[in-house]
């Protein structure tokens, strides 16, 4: 049997602040740049620090296989992500990946809706990149807290996507949550939807998407102990036929089909 080596030492190419609290980290690693699908993630061991026992999981935002590059966008929320802001070009990042199952991208052109919130916007870059190559039509709706947190709009526009920005406080684009402005987008012809964002956003958009009856995939987050399936810390309730069972976000996910997700009190 062919064994998988998930370990990588990826040199930092750049680590730049892209808006309030968010950084874009570009890393060089040939295997990851070639093999990672949109929606898959890497698990980073921050500075090999002894006090940070757990790796930190981040979705891969975009891959550039020709240059052996891939990138993630991270939001500074705690110890690990704060320490990551120190990363300098040529520092080497210890990571495992690619992990999990990514978004399914059809081979043929389709009409797609991309729904992103906060740092969940970044993994949709990779989705857009793939869809662009299939000549799909894309409508993108992105939600941010305020204008200072907005990032990535240009990326989607570069792929020719129709891009709509909402901010909670109306300081940029439309005022309000993504869910409030989804109606407009849903009026169009949509075959597939891709969703990545914070849990409240997911909860808010789920009923609307269910109603619309489009093939929809959602990327979930969970606290992770390992990222490769052995610790069972990342489980969520998922429908499997009639039954509801525990599945691992790190292996069976992070991308799940809308109809399989059980959004109970735990998620």
């Amino acid at each position: 049997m062919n064994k998988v080596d998930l370990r990588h030492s990826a040199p930092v190419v750049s680590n730049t602040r892209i808006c309030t609290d968010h950084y874009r980290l570009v890393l060089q690693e040939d295997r990851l740049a070639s093999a990672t699908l949109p929606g898959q993630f890497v698990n980073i061991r921050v500075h090999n620090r002894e006090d940070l026992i757990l790796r930190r999981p981040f979705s891969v935002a975009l891959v550039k296989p020709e240059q052996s590059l891939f990138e993630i966008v991270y939001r500074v929320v705690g110890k690990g992500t704060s320490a990551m802001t120190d990363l300098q070009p040529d520092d080497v990042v210890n990571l495992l990946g690619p992990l999990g199952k990514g978004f399914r991208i059809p081979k043929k052109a389709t009409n797609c809706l991309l729904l992103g919130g906060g740092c969940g916007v970044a993994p949709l870059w990779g989705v857009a990149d793939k869809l662009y190559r299939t000549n799909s039509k894309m409508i993108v709706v992105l939600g941010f807290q305020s204008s200072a947190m907005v990032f990535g709009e240009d990326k989607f526009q570069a792929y020719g996507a129709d891009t709509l920005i909402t901010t909670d406080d109306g300081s940029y684009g439309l005022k309000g949550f993504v869910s409030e402005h989804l109606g407009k987008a849903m009026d169009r012809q949509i075959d597939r939807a891709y969703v990545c964002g914070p849990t409240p956003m997911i909860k808010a958009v789920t009923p609307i998407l269910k109603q619309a009856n489009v093939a929809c995939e959602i990327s979930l987050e969970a606290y992770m102990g390992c990222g490769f399936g052995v610790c069972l810390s990342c489980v969520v309730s998922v429908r499997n036929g009639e039954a509801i069972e525990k599945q691992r976000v790190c292996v069976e996910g992070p991308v799940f089909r809308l109809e399989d997700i059980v959004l109970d009190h735990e998620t």
Partner: protein
Amino acid sequence: MKPDLTTNLCGIKMSNPVVTASGTSGYGQEFSQFYDLGVFGAFTVKSITIEKREGNPTPRIAECTGGLLNSIGIQSQGVRHFIQKDLPLLRQYNVPVIVSIAGLSVDEYPRVATILDQEEGISAIEVNISCPNLEADGCSFGGDPEISGQIIGAVKSTTSLPVIAKLTPNVTDITAIAKSVETCGADAVALINTLGGMAIDIQTRKPKLANIIGGLSGPVIKPIGIKMVWQVYNAVQIPIIGIGGIMTWEDAIEYILAGATAVGVGTALLQDPWVVFDIIEGISEYLEKNGLNRSDDIRGKIKLPETP
């Protein structure tokens, strides 16, 4: 000359003293994608119960300075599922398989053991009497020497396999538990399981674990594990699997010096499954540098200070 790492743990013939700690390497399926499981001295699976169990609500894991809190609970597909789906894979590897079992009541343990005793390809049964997460207060069967002994005795009577008692550190006197399970027939002890712990997010005021209380593992518990292994080494005759905060080969050697025959690696495997190679290599080099052929030569051999 390369040292001889082969280790005999109560009849289990291991290629080296490094085993997986239960619950941190699943049932072998994931690690078998990474490398040949034969690298381990033995492979200990996550604790198995008689029936399917859901485990605890999420979040089930939280980090604290130098350690990990978990409250997975025993999420298990049940012993029959294990035999049908997981054991066949494990049998393909040249590695002794230690099956950890857990129970909600004293008599569940022998019931699981009876079923396992029928199966090929199991080298030993590890009895997880610690299981600090099943009851909300963190206490467990393993806190009582008598009940601990009872469970081990009951399991022993159902199986001819070696029986390893996995001890909880959440006790007043670990030697009392160790002596009791030895008397009741345990062939080895494994210690320590996780320490009862808790953490609160001061912003949300919520416990970081949905189960409120969990078990602490990782580097932070090593001094406690080393102490307990040393105490148990001096209290019983049966061999010890030393567990708790082993992240490096240096930690493994420290446990062997404290009296461990084998060492179990847990949290470190969650951080990096490949760390086992470094640990085994490091043990070998340490022995070689010190002119030793076997880890037995240093087991329990700490230099005690002269009394004045």
